[in-house]
């Protein structure tokens, strides 16, 4: 899966000949002189670039093609606003004008391997990785729905089966004994065990036949625990999870924050299978708490 790269290394203009230099200036400044229309943020007073139309007759060399508006400005080293894209994944709809003349180089990060090989194939390009992708309003021409959808898909794919902290999504798999498929829940959207348990109940309710009661907020040292009950079968289900160490614990035994930090996946199992979990869980909790207090 392609990973969105947020920042790119930029290797500044080389001491190569004027032609190459000019070319790079076009390449890197290509969006500088766009009078991008700020629809949502409404930047008042953004300077519009001088609009000099450069017309050349006869043989047109690409370097002097003037294909960019304000190319002459670039050559003359005029100050340009550098539209810098902070977040590659953002929806196009805003252009960030830095407001001051920014140096072309940006904070170095490892260059993309693909671009490196390109360099050898194209001797004219001295840059080993592309300049930061400038966000221009409405470019490339893709409808908002598609842009938003693709952004979400990317995130989901990256987190498949994994935990990712602090990125706004914390997907873990939840399986239930006897259910035909697994589900995924985003732990980040819940704030406590009660929310989680009611969400899970809703998700898996189709697999328990008949009524089941919502369960007990049984407090144990200030924590809550939930159970799914299948009255028809007379068996009790409990919610368990596998933590970072690979141990299976009862959900509800540790503080919520610790839970979401360590939960790798969850399993709704028959309580008969869950015997022996509780004491270990308590022990672990105690150990951890002690460790934290040191």
């Amino acid at each position, binding site marked *: *899966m*392609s990973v*969105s*790269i947020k920042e*790119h290394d930029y290797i500044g203009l080389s001491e190569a000949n004027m032609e190459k230099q000019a*070319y790079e200036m*076009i390449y890197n400044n*290509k969006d500088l002189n*766009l*009078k*991008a*229309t*700020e*629809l*949502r943020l409404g*930047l*008042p007073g*953004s300077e*519009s670039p001088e*609009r000099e*139309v*450069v*017309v*050349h007759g006869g043989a*047109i060399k*690409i370097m002097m*093609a*003037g*294909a960019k*508006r304000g190319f002459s400005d670039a050559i003359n080293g005029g100050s340009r606003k550098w539209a810098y*894209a902070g977040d*590659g*994944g953002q929806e*196009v*709809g805003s252009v960030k004008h830095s407001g001051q003349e920014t140096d072309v180089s940006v904070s170095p990060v490892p260059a*993309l391997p*693909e671009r490196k090989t390109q360099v050898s194939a*194209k001797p004219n390009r001295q840059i080993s990785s*592309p300049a930061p*992708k400038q*966000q*221009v309003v*409405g*470019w490339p*021409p*893709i*409808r*908002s*729905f*598609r*842009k938003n*959808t*693709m*952004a979400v*898909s*990317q995130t989901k*794919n990256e987190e498949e089966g994994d935990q990712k902290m602090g990125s706004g999504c914390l997907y873990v798999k939840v399986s239930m004994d006897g259910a*035909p*498929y697994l*589900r995924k829940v985003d732990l980040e959207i819940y704030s406590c065990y009660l929310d989680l348990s009611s969400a899970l109940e809703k998700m898996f309710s189709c697999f328990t036949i008949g009524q089941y009661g919502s369960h007990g907020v049984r407090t144990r040292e200030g924590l809550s625990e939930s159970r799914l009950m299948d009255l028809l079968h007379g068996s009790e289900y409990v919610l368990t999870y596998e933590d970072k160490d690979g141990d299976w614990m009862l959900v509800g035994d540790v503080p919520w924050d610790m839970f979401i930090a360590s939960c790798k996946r969850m399993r709704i199992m028959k309580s008969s299978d869950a015997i022996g979990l509780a004491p270990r869980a308590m022990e672990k909790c105690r150990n951890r708490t002690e460790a934290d207090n040191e």
Partner: protein
Amino acid sequence: MDPAATGVTVAGTGADPAKTTMFPEEFLKRTFSLINSDKDRNSVSLVCKDWYNVERMSRRHVSIRNCYSVSPEIVTARFPAIRSVTLKGKPRFSDFNLVPDDWGADVQPWLNVFATAYPFLEELRLKRMAVSDESLEFLALNFDDFKALSMLSCEGFSTLGLEAIATHCKNLTELDIQENGIDDLGGDWLSYFPENLTSLEVLNFSTLTSEVSFDALESLVSRCKSLRVLKVNRKINLEQLGKLLVLAPQLIELGTGTFLEELVSGSVNGLENAFSKCGNLVTLSSFWDATLLHLPVVYPVCGNLTFLNLSYANIGPDELEQILSRSKRLVRLWVVDTVGDKGLEAVGSHCPLLEELRVFPVDPFDQQLGVTDSGLVAVSKGCPKLHYILYFCQRMTNAAVITVAQNCPNFTHFRLCIMNPSEPDYLTNEPMDEAFGAIVKTCTKLQRLSVSGLLTDLAFEYIGRYAKNLETLSVAFAGDSDLGMEYVMRGCPKLKRVEIRDCPFGDSALLSGLTQYESMRSLWMSDCNVTMDGCKKLAEEMSWLNVEVIKDEGGDDRLANKVYVYRTVAGPRKDAPPFVVTL
């Protein structure tokens, strides 16, 4: 013989008045009722007064491609018997955030007039219109025979509006909601369809993001035996999809939900079985979160597919190969560039009947390669019938496009988007002029062209010289001077819609189109070199044009940063917001 029929000389024959040709009105009526194409009807209406009158009385469908080119009063006066309306509003670049909110294209004024003039209205298809919940409710309450609502790229409404439609439209056959700026308040709008509504044939809510009541959906699908198009949203999972398929094996088009779950094998078999019973399926779309894990459930129907829309499925070349090797009848294919050039080679190998290909970027701002020139060439080699391409790529070469033009001379729609603005041929560093030159020279049937990459005035000279059938042109970050646009405006007689952004075309270029604007639907120019003076001049010369400037905040007052020019018989807009200035 109808006594009311007057003898009228057929125009242009210069016939002796004594030898008039009389067609009884009844005859004309019957004949015209067989003519459905708008274009044909327009031609027919130009023949003579009689024909004009008979035609207008019998027209059932009208397509208004620019809602400001005509007023609802004029439309209803001319065509009294309309049952179906297609209405398009904002300029296309509004899809890409170039048009401010509240620009206009409100559907309500149209509905107000239709309520009295067309009380029997059955179908309304809207594109890029502003639609409010109140308007949807108005529609639902005022048109008892209303059957089909389709909204594409509209905005301003929420699921509350959908509730109104579901509640009151007793004869609804079609509800098609796509890619709209909808306020998805969730709720249960699907449950508002009454139990006795069984007429639904088309239901598409694939781009709604919130959960819908599955029970309501299941019940609806189960009782609507004529359902032929069903496109659900991402909240419907595979297991639920299976249940729906079992209830509706007669479906012709299906949009799946998410493929995210891991089904146990029993369920997979069930799903495959359900698919295998759908002998009529020719279109499959959505495939959210699809992977090779569960893609195979659709294999039983691949052999019949003519349209496969994988543009929301980030699959790779191997997954694509698996599907395509089973889908030999494909005519239209939409994919994401995660399939890469390798995936496109698979397209070339497996889809000899392919006529349309669209390749969308998974992440336009990621510099990783996606698809390139070689993928495009591979497709053109294997798919000689290709006539429609939409291709987003990071890099391209002239040589590749020249080859493509030779392999596929029948292009009617060629839309190439090299995503870096003004990107040259990556091998030669030259402009991409020759690429588009080859396309317009070879593809004489070309109707629609979107250009990109580094382009000089030469590219436009080619377009003006060769693209004689061109109707729609989209240009961005291209050209050297006014000459570029002038070549096009003077050279392409059939232009209907031109949209230009970020090009060095100024007033002279704008005014060069004087002879064209009368026959064109619209012109959009933004971030070019057009001034207010130039616009004023244009407005003075052509009184039947609306020359509108969308003012920016804090921009230079002399510059006309966004110009929208269109022909109209309705005069200047009466509902223009303050930032739209009509000259």
